[in-house]
């Protein structure tokens, strides 16, 4: 496993992370280094703790009052669970895209993309317009919406809505982008677009993606982590995980024998 504490290429260093909901441990003693400007896929059967792991990275699990964590997560050396660090600050540096696309229904396309900036005090229209174009271009949505920026966001198709959510997350310029099954509710064509997008985004961003889709992990990711029953079973380069996994359980899962 890649757990070298001096790994300078690591955006995120996770050490001994456990997450509990009440008495139940959803993630057990996970240590992992997430490489910067690469795509890391988290795979595993339902209920294996992969979403919980993802949410612990930007402290979203704290929305659940029963949730509690142990261990340490550092983002480029900064302890994100330090007492002096607020969850709001962490989430500005670590963005998230959810399984179900959730553009704000009361807002236009433009307002959706800029909402993170506007509600954090950016008023300058020039900056907002620039950042909107930049984010929508990165999300491969610009050409489709540039002539109707003031149309309601919910008038877009499902795949477009999800790319809009990605653009919205990119607009606040996070360092890491977490994606929780971003394409699982989309048709194959829209899924392919999202995957292309993920690959193109890694030149600027560190991406962690949870997926149920083996092919997606194989196609889009550089590293793959296999979670099972809350534990990190195996972690390594994607090609290795899919062609010559060290663990029997990993092999069984990626070849479709269980899960």
């Amino acid at each position, binding site marked *: 496993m890649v757990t070298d504490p001096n790994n300078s290429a690591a955006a995120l260093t996770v050490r001994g992370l456990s997450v509990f909901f009440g008495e139940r441990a959803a993630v057990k003693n996970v240590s992992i280094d997430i490489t910067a400007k690469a795509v890391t896929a988290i795979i595993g059967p339902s209920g294996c703790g992969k979403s919980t792991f993802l949410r612990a990275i930007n402290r979203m699990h704290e929305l659940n009052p029963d949730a509690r964590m142990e261990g340490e997560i550092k983002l480029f050396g900064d302890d994100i669970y330090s007492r002096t660090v607020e969850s709001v600050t962490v*989430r500005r540096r670590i963005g998230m895209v959810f399984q179900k696309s959730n553009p*704000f*229904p*009361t807002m236009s396309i433009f307002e959706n993309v800029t*909402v993170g900036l506007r509600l954090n005090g950016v008023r300058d229209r020039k900056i907002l317009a620039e950042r909107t174009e930049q984010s929508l271009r990165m999300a491969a949505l610009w050409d489709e919406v540039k002539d109707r920026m003031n149309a309601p966001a919910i008038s877009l198709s499902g795949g477009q809505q999800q790319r809009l959510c990605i653009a919205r997350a990119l607009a*606040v310029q996070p360092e890491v982008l977490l994606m929780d099954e971003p394409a699982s509710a989309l048709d194959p064509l829209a899924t392919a677009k999202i995957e292309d997008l993920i690959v193109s985004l890694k030149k600027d961003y560190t991406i962690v993606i949870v997926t149920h889709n083996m092919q997606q992990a194989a196609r889009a990711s550089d590293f793959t982590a296999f979670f099972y029953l809350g534990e990190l079973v195996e972690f390594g380069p994607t090609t290795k995980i899919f062609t010559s996994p060290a663990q029997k359980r990993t092999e069984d899962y990626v070849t479709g024998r269980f899960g």
Partner: protein
Amino acid sequence: MTAPNHSWRNFKNAFMQTLACVCAILVVAPLLLVFYHLIKEGFTSINWAFFTELPKPVGEVGGGMGNAIVGTFVLLAQAAVIGVPVGVLGGVFLSEYGGTKLNWWIRFAADILNGVPSITWGIVVYALLVVPMHGFSALAGGVVLGMMMIPLVMRTTEEVLQLVPGGYREAALALGIAKWKTIVQIVIRTALKGIVTGVLLALARVAGETAPLLFTALGNEHWTHKLTEPISAMPLQIFAYAISPYDDWHRQAWAGALVLLLLVLSINIGVRFLTRDRFQQKA
């Protein structure tokens, strides 16, 4: 095997269907009955003077309840100033902040308050405001209606906020937006039509209250210029006229009841309009 006889089953089916239909008609019938009577008795007394003039003394024909109509709006405005912010913020607390146990107690209290007889509210505000201020006042009337609105608005606000999908909250928080900004700009904005609907329904509900106003606003034969003076309101004026022995006043009472009903009805129609728009947006 003999051919099954369905006649008894068919009879039971038809009987139940008819019974349900009759009951459904019984639900609608009172509304039609009320309208029929109010229009028949009250419509002829509605004229320009009814909306603009003061009540005339006994014996003089004509006059109106302009002061009572204005009074009702003054009372409702005061009630809204008290009831809307407290009720909405209370609902926000229940939906977005409070813990399970605390919320249970707050909801329980609000539900009890919603069931408190309105005359009880009147007596409470009489003791709290009218006695210390040495007199009935428009202020006391507004306060009592506002207090009645709080639990109504709080519960409906909580309910519509709960209908906002959690995904929107998560999306906003994941952008590093502070919780209070998420609540104001995302959650409340998404549920705004529902909140406004709840406020309007609460206003419609207290607009017709009479008993609590007897102990607070009291009623007034003249225009009210200060909130510390007693003020008239449509339900009070209707009550005063209806129990009088004069035919002309009875006609005025019918007309007042018709106008009050139309006011409440127009609020309800406005609410229908708002909610219809919301469902269209969802589709």
